[in-house]
C-alpha cells in the first residue's frame, strides 16, 4: 500500500500506524510479504471490530453478499491520550485519501511534481502529495507561497482588489474539491483608511483532487495533467501591483486498479 512509503512521516510525528481488515492472518501475512509491509496489519475475520465501530458496509455488501463484512474504508487518528483528532471517511467505498495527503494536511512538505517560480512579489513552490495515484485516490496539490518583504496578497472576500484564487481547469479524469486557503489577516491601509484581508509571509493553499480515471472501455491513460490559473494581486504599503495571473500545472502518473490476489487456497469464504 502507498502507506508503507509514508511510514517515516508518521513515525517522525510519533504516530503509530495500523491497518485493519476482515482478512485472515494468513492473507495478511501473504499480503505483507508480497508488498513488503512492515506496520501491523490487523485481522478481524468475523468483522467483530468493524461492527463494534459501526462502520460495516451493509449498503454495498448486504448480508448474503460474497463481500459482506467489509467496512466503509477510513482512518481515525488519535492524540497521545487516544482521543480521535482526525477522522477521514470518503463518501464512497472506492475512494480514500492517500497517506501522503494526510501528512500534508498536518503541515508536511510535498515532494512530487515540484515546480518553483519567483517574481518581485513572491516565491511559489507548487507540488503534489503523490507522484502516482490509482482511481479512487484523493491526493493533494500544494501551493507554498513566500511573500517578498513587506508584500501582501489579497485574500478571498476582499473588495476592490483581486483576491488570490486557484482556478483549476475541469478534467474528466478527476473530481475537484474545494481549495483550502489559510486564515487571512486584516491589513490596515492608513492612507485610504481601509482594512482588507490579506496573506503575508509564508502560507499554503491546498487543493484536493480525487482520481476517477478513464471511463470503462476508454483508451488507457498513463498520466493526468492538471492545469490551472492562479489569480492574484499583491501590494505593500508603498507599491501596488496590477491584478495579475500565472499558469500552474501538475502531473500525476495514473496507476491501474490493484487486482492482485492471494492464492486461491487462502481466499476468504463468504460470511454467513
Amino acid at each position, binding site marked *: 500500500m502507498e502507506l508503507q512509503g509514508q511510514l517515516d512521516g508518521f513515525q517522525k510525528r*510519533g504516530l*503509530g500506524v*495500523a*491497518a*485493519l481488515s476482515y482478512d485472515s492472518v494468513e492473507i495478511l501475512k501473504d499480503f505483507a510479504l508480497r508488498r513488503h509491509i512492515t506496520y501491523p496489519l490487523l485481522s478481524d475475520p468475523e468483522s467483530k471490530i468493524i461492527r463494534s*465501530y459501526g462502520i460495516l458496509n451493509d449498503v454495498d455488501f448486504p448480508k448474503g453478499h460474497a463481500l459482506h463484512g467489509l*467496512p466503509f*474504508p477510513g*482512518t481515525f487518528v488519535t492524540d497521545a491520550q487516544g482521543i480521535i483528532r482526525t477522522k477521514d471517511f*470518503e463518501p464512497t467505498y472506492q475512494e480514500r485519501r492517500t497517506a501522503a495527503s494526510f501528512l500534508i494536511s498536518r503541515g508536511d512538505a510535498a515532494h512530487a511534481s515540484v515546480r518553483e517560480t519567483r517574481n518581485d512579489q513572491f516565491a511559489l513552490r507548487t507540488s503534489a502529495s503523490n507522484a502516482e495515484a490509482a482511481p479512487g485516490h484523493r491526493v493533494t496539490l500544494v501551493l507554498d507561497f513566500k511573500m517578498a518583504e513587506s508584500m501582501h496578497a489579497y485574500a478571498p472576500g476582499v473588495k476592490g482588489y483581486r483576491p488570490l484564487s486557484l482556478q483549476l481547469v475541469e478534467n474528466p479524469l478527476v473530481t475537484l474539491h474545494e481549495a483550502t486557503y489559510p486564515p487571512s489577516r486584516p491589513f490596515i491601509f492608513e492612507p485610504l483608511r481601509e482594512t482588507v484581508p490579506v496573506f503575508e509571509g509564508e502560507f499554503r493553499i491546498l487543493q484536493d483532487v480525487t482520481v476517477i480515471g478513464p471511463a470503462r472501455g476508454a483508451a488507457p491513460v498513463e498520466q493526468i495533467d492538471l492545469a490551472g490559473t492562479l489569480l492574484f494581486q499583491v501590494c505593500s504599503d508603498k507599491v501596488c501591483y496590477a491584478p495579475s495571473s500565472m499558469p500552474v500545472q501538475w502531473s500525476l502518473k495514473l496507476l491501474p486498479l490493484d487486482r492482485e490476489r492471494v492464492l486461491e487456497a487462502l481466499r476468504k469464504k463468504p460470511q454467513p
Partner: protein
Amino acid sequence: MILASLLLVAAQAATAERPDPMTLGPAVGQPLIAFEARDQTGALRNLDSLKGLNGLALLFFRSADW
C-alpha cells in the same frame, strides 16, 4: 414492467439509505473503541501496543484480497 418498477423502487431506496460514512463510528473528540486483534505475524495486539508517543493512525481498509 412490474419488475422494472420494483427495481427502480429498490434502487431509490438504496440511494436514500446510503449513509455519509463520516457520520458513522466514533466521532472526533471520542476515544477509539478498545479491541484485540492478531497482526500478520499472529501476535495479539491492542490499542496500547499499536500507538506511538503522540497517538495512532488506525486505518480500516477494504481487504488485502479482493
